[in-house]
């Protein structure tokens, strides 16, 4: 099947408006006869479920947690971008669009990104109307901060808990519709397959995670908003339950999977401490507004610090290498995430890592505390303030801005980050790749939509900070509710979709067979055993830097682990009860396929762009020496993979990317 991105005609700034003016609508009485399934209740799924129900559709929403409010969007810390230009610093829809396409290293679809920028302002209005308590200044107006890869302040925030507050906003909108009966909420349910009838997505098979019962749910359209696949690395900043199963199931039933190798390794996470580690914790990018990243200049100091003979605070300014400021003077500590992560890896690979594992750099707030302290002394008319007084005043400001993050760090690491610099290291955080969708956010299965992190659409090869929340809510509140109506206008005479069809029988049987296999396999190794092995291969060979040899090995090794998994996995307990090991087994089985496709995609893409860095493709000389080298001539396309059984046999379909409104050029943050 040829890919049709269905981008509307016309100038980029008019596309979305013209599109909305021309699509088919469903009248309010008919909406009452149409059912929509929404899987996942994070920012994308939650906002979509609420809005579709407000419009009058009957929504069935599914979450594996015990409440929609617990989806992992809740953990987003820093903020949400919007081109409001409240700061008067020259921001505009075009600039947000431009920054996002550039930040994504020119691998996203222009029309989608422009639409995202266009609706970004509405998101802030909507959230404020819902009662989201964004940070404000003393005049009562909304405050902003800066994030990486941009030169304006367009990030709205609620302390370090912006994701939580936005999700609670979407959740409150859902609650209103649940109370009206327009959303039927299925908590502690997991989608295990999509059901396709006459070529259209018409329902899902779900497992009740409390009773183990397998349920059939039908609808006129199915929306997948189940987040990314970062847990393919085992260790990531994702929640323990975050999984790719829904996305992978629709892939196996015909939805193409795009750019799996575009994965974001976030530069500022707490370094791992031991083999028992179950997940990694992010320290918000907002910290790079005030924190300065460094390692010692001299190897003697590195060794002294590792052996405990010196403390980081013993080193003078001259003995420190603020390597981001050195390499990228224009953006300094606020370069995009992929650039910051690779720079940290470069220093640590060269031996300058500052902890026992050699995988950590410093994030230091001493300068910010000084700067704020002096400013406060002025504001409070304190003449000749003592060093201690300046420190005290400065610390208060830093605490007000980042207090909860500092507390989180101290609880985990047992060190006081006001007194000694934080240690950080990159970790898997977000996946730009995902299910391929057209301009309508529909997958290659008619009637099956994919929104939020689960789709591939807006961030290209690298996502800018504070843009995930923006995209999730844009898709759910302002895009999908229009585009899905156009599709459903053909379904007003269809009537209820029956669940006793052969298609449902077949899908349910396949789900039950797989569960029975797991609980009866009686192997010798736990699910986590295989997940950890997969994660190690992914991190070592498909991590921050990739090469042909490693990727080929990774594909073979993942296949090997997958075969062993199916022979030897051990799942205790039974199918008809709450069984967390059984849940994990199904998710890891899917990761074991996705991981191989991921490596295959990385192998195919013989260029470095965004989060995908091929060691064979770097600039060899000039000002950009050592930086990633993109190849627009051969690789300015979206790689959409069609499932053909084994991941290694997946067939590549190319969506050529056209850049009409932005000139393709090398990203420079120097």
């Amino acid at each position, binding site marked *: 099947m040829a890919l049709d991105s269905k981008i509307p005609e016309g100038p980029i700034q008019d596309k979305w408006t013209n599109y909305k003016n021309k699509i088919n609508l469903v009248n309010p009485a008919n909406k009452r006869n149409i059912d929509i399934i929404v899987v996942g209740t994070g920012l994308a799924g939650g906002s979509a479920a609420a809005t579709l129900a407000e419009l009058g559709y009957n929504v069935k929403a599914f979450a594996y947690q015990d409440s929609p409010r617990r989806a992992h969007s809740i953990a987003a810390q820093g903020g949400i971008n919007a081109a409001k230009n409240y700061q008067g610093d020259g921001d505009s829809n075009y600039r947000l669009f431009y920054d996002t396409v550039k930040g994504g290293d020119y691998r996203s679809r222009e029309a989608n990104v422009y639409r995202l920028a266009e609706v970004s302002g509405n998101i802030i209005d909507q959230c404020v109307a819902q009662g989201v308590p964004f940070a404000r200044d003393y005049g009562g107006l909304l405050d902003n901060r800066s994030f990486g890869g941009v030169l304006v302040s367009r990030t709205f925030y609620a302390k370090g808990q912006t994701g939580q507050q936005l999700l609670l906003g979407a959740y409150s909108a859902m609650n209103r519709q649940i109370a009206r009966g327009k959303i039927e909420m299925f908590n502690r349910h997991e989608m295990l397959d999509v059901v396709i009838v006459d070529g259209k997505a018409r329902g899902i098979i779900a497992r009740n995670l409390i009773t183990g019962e397998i349920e059939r749910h039908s609808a006129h359209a199915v929306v997948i908003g189940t987040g990314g696949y970062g847990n393919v690395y085992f260790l990531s900043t994702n929640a323990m339950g975050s999984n790719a199963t829904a996305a992978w199931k629709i892939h196996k039933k015909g939805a193409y999977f795009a750019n799996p190798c575009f994965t974001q390794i976030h530069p500022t996470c707490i370094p791992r401490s031991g083999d028992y580690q*179950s997940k990694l914790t992010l320290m918000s990018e907002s910290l790079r507004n005030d924190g300065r990243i460094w390692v010692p200049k001299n190897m003697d100091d590195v060794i002294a610090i590792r052996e405990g003979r010196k403390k980081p605070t013993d080193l003078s300014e001259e003995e420190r290498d603020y390597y981001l400021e050195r390499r990228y003077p224009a953006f300094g500590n606020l370069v995009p995430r992929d650039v910051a992560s690779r720079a940290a890896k470069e220093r640590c690979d060269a031996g300058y890592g500052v902890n026992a594992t050699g995988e950590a750099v410093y994030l230091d707030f001493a300068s910010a505390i000084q700067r704020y302290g002096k400013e406060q002394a002025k504001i409070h008319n304190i003449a000749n303030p003592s060093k201690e007084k300046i420190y005290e005043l400065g610390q208060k400001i830093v605490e007000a801005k980042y207090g909860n993050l500092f507390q989180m760090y101290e609880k985990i690491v047992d060190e006081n980050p006001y007194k000694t610099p934080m240690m950080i290291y990159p970790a898997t955080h977000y996946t730009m790749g995902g299910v391929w969708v057209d301009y309508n956010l529909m997958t290659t299965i008619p009637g099956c939509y994919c929104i939020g992190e689960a789709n591939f659409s807006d961030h290209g090869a690298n996502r800018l900070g504070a843009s995930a929340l923006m995209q999730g809510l844009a898709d759910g509140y302002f895009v999908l509710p229009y585009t899905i109506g156009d599709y459903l206008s053909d379904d007003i005479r269809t009537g209820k979709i029956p669940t006793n069809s052969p298609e449902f029988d077949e899908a349910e049987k396949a789900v039950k067979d797989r569960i029975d296999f797991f609980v009866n396999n009686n192997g010798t190794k736990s699910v986590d055993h295989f997940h950890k092995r997969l994660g190690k291969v992914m991190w070592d060979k498909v991590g921050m830097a990739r090469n042909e040899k490693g990727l080929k090995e990774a594909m073979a090794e993942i296949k090997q682990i997958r075969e062993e998994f199916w022979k030897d996995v051990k799942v205790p307990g039974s199918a008809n009860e709450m069984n967390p090991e059984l849940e994990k087994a199904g998710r890891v089985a899917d990761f074991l396929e996705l991981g191989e496709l991921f490596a295959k995609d990385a192998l195919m893409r013989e260029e470095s762009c965004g989060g995908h860095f091929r060691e064979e493709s770097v600039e060899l000389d000039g000002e950009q020496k050592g930086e990633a080298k993109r190849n627009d001539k051969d690789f300015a396309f979206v790689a959409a993979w069609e499932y053909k059984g084994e991941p290694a046999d997946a067939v590549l379909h190319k969506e050529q990317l056209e850049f009409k409104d932005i000139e393709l050029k090398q990203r420079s943050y120097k």
Partner: protein
Amino acid sequence: MNLTLRIWRQKDSSAKGQMVDYKVNDISEHMSFLEMMDVLNEQLVNSGEEPVAFDHDCREGICGMCSLYINGEAHGPDRGVTTCQLHMRMFNDGDTITIEPWRAAAFPVIKDLVVDRTSFERIQHAGGYISVNTSGNTQDANAIPISKHAADEAMDAATCIGCGACVATCKNSSAMLFVGAKVSQYALLPQGQVEAADRVKNMVAQMDLEGFGNCTNTGACEIECPKGISLDNIARMNRELIKAALK
């Protein structure tokens, strides 16, 4: 360190539960409490026993899923943390650690340490929202100036993660801190005023219907709350309720 774990095991909601002892060895002080539980479960799986079911997800203290009652305290001995943020450095070699689920009539046990908190959901359905549709032409966000003080206070209330530690720790199993926080967030903001009276009446009525107890001002909930939600929120909820009754 080597530890003895005394854990509540219960097959399902209708089964009778009991405390069972397990031993875990070589636990690092840098592990989180739930990573220690992972070690136990790996051990149980490998020896052919059923692992202990417990709720958890984000493991960074924000989703509100984890919910263990450890040595008689909700989320264990540390302050201002959820169970997933509790670290083993809070314990000593040779300790016996008692681990139970949240105990409250309105939170029935589903399995082992997992409880059913849908009563919290139903309270939110009763009024935990502002009635505004998604339209794309809502008034501009800066058209409603909100004093920094009110915005910050609303944020402090909104920071509640809905874990239920307040209920678990209260001798009356009262949910007033949870409901008070939600009522306060909206009561402090101008957007929440229109529906304020109905909201507080409906949410409190649902809270009573679910079987949560009353508040006797012991303040235990505030101490055990991982997010430091203040008792002031309960006072504010009561004020709102009286205001609503007089309308």
